[in-house]
């Protein structure tokens, strides 16, 4: 089973092919977003909406056999691509592994502005929200 670090390194390797060309990176992210499994409409409610100034993210966690599984969607294509990557990295992992992990891929693929101090997107809130779910799951089980 691949670790969170392994998956991030694979992603970074894929993005290195674009040699820093931002337009190609964004197109690729938009394509990745299309691979995100459709989120059931019943879960796309206000309760599971992570609000951002510009882009919204819906996030629904499932806990099965001690692992976290994520359903997610976004109203903007680029964020959706990043959400896909995040679901690939953190989905099917234990809460402890999620809580102890560092997300270094975002900066390495040239998208650090998405996690900077800009209050503009739901992606940052999504990262925090997943960690909160992992924490809640842990404390419930301890």
């Amino acid at each position, binding site marked *: 089973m691949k670790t969170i670090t392994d998956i991030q390194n694979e992603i970074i390797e894929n993005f290195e092919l674009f040699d*820093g060309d*931002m337009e190609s990176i*964004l197109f690729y992210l*938009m394509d990745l977003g299309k691979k995100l499994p459709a989120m059931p409409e019943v879960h796309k409610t206000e309760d599971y909406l992570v609000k951002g*100034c*510009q882009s919204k993210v819906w996030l629904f966690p499932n806990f099965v056999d001690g692992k976290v599984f994520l359903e997610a969607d976004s109203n*903007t294509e680029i*964020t959706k691509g990043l959400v896909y990557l995040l679901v690939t990295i953190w989905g099917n992992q234990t809460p402890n592994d999620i809580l102890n992990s560092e997300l270094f891929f975002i900066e390495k693929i040239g998208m650090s502005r998405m996690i900077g101090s800009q209050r*503009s997107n739901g992606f940052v809130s999504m990262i925090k929200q997943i960690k909160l779910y992992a924490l809640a799951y842990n404390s419930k089980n301890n």
Partner: protein
Amino acid sequence: MAQKLDITSIRNQFPILHQEVNGKPLIYFDNAATTQKPQSVIDALIKYYSHDNANIHRAAHTLAARSTDMFEDTRKTIQTFINTKEVEECIFTKGVTESINLVAQSWGRKFLNAGDEVIITTMEHHSNIVPWQMICEEKNAILKVIPINDAGELLMEEYDKMLSSKTKMVACVWVSNALGTINPVKEIIEKAHAVGAKVLLDGAQACSHLEVDVQDLDCDFLAISSHKLYGPTGVGVLYGKRELLEAMPPYQGGGEMIKEVSFDKTTYNEIPYKFEAGTPNIGDVIAFKYALDFINEIGKENIEKHENELLKHCVDGLEQINKSPNHQIIQLIGTAKEKVSVQSFIINGMHHFDAGMMLDAKGIAVRTGHHCTQPLMSYLGVDGTIRASFSVYNTLEEVDVFLEAVKKLVVLTAKHTK
């Protein structure tokens, strides 16, 4: 008569413009958010902190005298720039937001009573909504909003109906930051005065594009930000008529604003100092003068002409893209007859955030989102727009690159939404 400008030599005064973003030459079309600064402004800041820094209005030493003179020089320059009767009617603030809060808190606390009415417009920036909501709530006063038509113009007949002896303040944006609409402020002021109301103009967007003459307009207050006028951030001006400023209580207490202080009683300083508590943003105020000099040197009329050419080129280009079959997905937001060089639009089928990121990848800086005008956006039924706003240093060639990039996004979106 307006003159043709030498844009290359103007651009050469702005070091920031000569850089690449994402491997492409920077095209800066976010001027409604903030303008870039000419070298003279940057040099003035360096010179001030290298040679002249001292606190103003107090000490007897040479540096303090020099700083004070330069600080007050900016006040004289802004007096001429907006043509106030007296220099003391110009108060330095942090910017438009603080200027409006100052009036809402100081004038509003003293002169607003329960049942009084304050009128604003649908196209206000949050900074001309929230301060009035706060004081209206405190005073049990009523906030009324002038509606607009689909082009983004005020419905003046609705304004007429709202005015009454209960109206105490009309706080109105002169030029809309999101739509570019130039509001008929002279008519608004005359009508407000006819019922005995005061008028505050939010001049954030107007002052860099239009001639400003507060005596001719006869507005009671005007709020200005330096950073939208090629000057530093953190500096603004509140113009107010002397009799109003004198009748208003201080906004903040502290140094500078006092005449005498004892533990029993404090007497306040004269205007403008009564409203300038604490050490002001001296360096930036001093540099602001150089920004005003830059504008005066080129001439507002010439700036306006050039910017209008850019706007027309952009609007024509966007409409042209919309003419080609299958690509009719651009929707212009804000099509008022009287406008400054701001164009908002949406691409149906593409989120404005994605469009902003894609344009940035080509080195083009535009603003996307609600532009701090959420009530306006919800009135228009959109959650945000793409906004291109032009300034004196922008070129027709830059607009062409922008239009080409927008066209690419439109083709891409049209293909995916088929």
